[in-house]
């Protein structure tokens, strides 16, 4: 990711900032500019909301593929979490072994390093999921 793009996306990656449609109340993450249900009536009216950081595992997959940025974490879990507010958010689940994960498991957001350009480059931070016991 380029530095300008990473910098623009700080907010929603650091704090799980989504948008809420004022007409139907649906919450979107990543943030959307337009509600796909209310279309024109939502344009320019979408509100920023901070999504509460707890939820549960809705679905998961174990990734064994050799991705350079995640070499130190392999094999790792990628999940779709259903947050308490109802919105579904996808991301990595860490601090738990693949054999211990289950559907419905409580998770919460944790602030982690996502990747770094190289040893001299910028460090990218963002959210991951961790078990919430």
């Amino acid at each position, binding site marked *: 990711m380029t530095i300008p793009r990473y910098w623009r996306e700080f907010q929603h990656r*650091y704090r799980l900032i989504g948008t809420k449609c004022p007409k139907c109340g649906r919450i979107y993450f990543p943030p959307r500019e337009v509600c796909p249900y209310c279309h024109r009536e939502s344009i320019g009216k979408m509100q920023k909301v901070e999504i509460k950081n707890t939820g549960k595992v809705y679905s998961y997959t174990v990734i064994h593929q050799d991705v350079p940025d995640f070499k*130190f974490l392999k094999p790792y879990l990628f999940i779709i979490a259903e947050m308490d507010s109802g919105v579904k958010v996808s991301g990595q689940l860490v*601090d738990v072994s693949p054999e211990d994960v289950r559907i419905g498991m409580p998770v919460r957001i*944790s602030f982690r390093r996502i990747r770094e350009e190289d040893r001299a480059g910028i*460090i990218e*931070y963002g959210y991951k999921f961790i078990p919430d016991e």
Partner: protein
Amino acid sequence: MVGIVSYGSYIPRWRIKVEEIARVWGEDAEDIKSGLFIYSKSVPGPDEDTATISVEALRNAMNRKSVKDVGAVYVGSESHPYAVKPTSTIVAEAMGFTPEITAADYEFACKAGTAAMQSVMGMVESGMIKNGIAIGADTSQGAPGDALEYSAAAGGTAFIIGNDNTIADIKRTYSVTTDTPDFWRREGQDYPRHGGRFTGEPAYFRHVTSVAKKIMELMGTKPEDYTYAVFHQPNGKFPTRAARMLGFKESQIKQGLIVPYIGNTYSGSMITGLSAILDIAKPEDRILAVSFGSGAGSDGFHIEITKNMEDYRRENAKAVWKQIESGKYIDYAIYTKFKKKIKMGD
């Protein structure tokens, strides 16, 4: 009165046992355990660093009490992720405090966090800010095979300091500083060096005990007037001996003595012990807290729990001892991978 409005700690989940490190280096684990009074230490995950630990500790503090009107954030550490670029900016952004806030990183070996606390106290008392944040966090490094490898650990604690609704008043702070070469790391070096036996008497014990004595003199208190005492914890032996030298009993230091299970979290060390005490303290309890940083200096605090502690939501974040107990053990091979001690190809 200026004091702690909220607090939170974060200890990474992973642990390595003394036996496992001793096995690799052909040393006697029992010898080390009885010598250092350390059984295991915390290890950060490969995606954790001082910035992530600081954010997690501060989120725990904010979950207990959501404090508005934060004017400063200072992060004390000797393992800031960047040599040039502040950790405090990352923390401020992650918490949504930017842009109207002042921020900086602090450095003073293991007492950078308490130096940050004192700065915030002064800013609050002068009326410059309403509330401020002081964090001490580290992911410390010991050279492979060095005695420090058994203790160099990761963790951190955040304090929100203000004048209103304090759960613990800080009635006095006092410091001692000298130029003492007991422990250092030169720019560009991966691992620190220490002055061996020199780290004990002229460094740790001299600074810690003189600060503790002076605070008791200034407050007109004696060891038995404190419910709890907590001292910097480079290992289990030093704080236990300092407590004994000063006349404190084991029952006063037990709650805050966390180093035997998670190791020395450097800038997070004493303040995470203090956090463990705040997890159970009751109104009117008195706490004597003294940090130590090599180089060298000590900051001491006389703290009294207020009535506000009764309505404070401690249960909204995991207690320190609960975090200590939920650790998962890894072996030395995984440890070297997590700590990125393996030399990778291009």
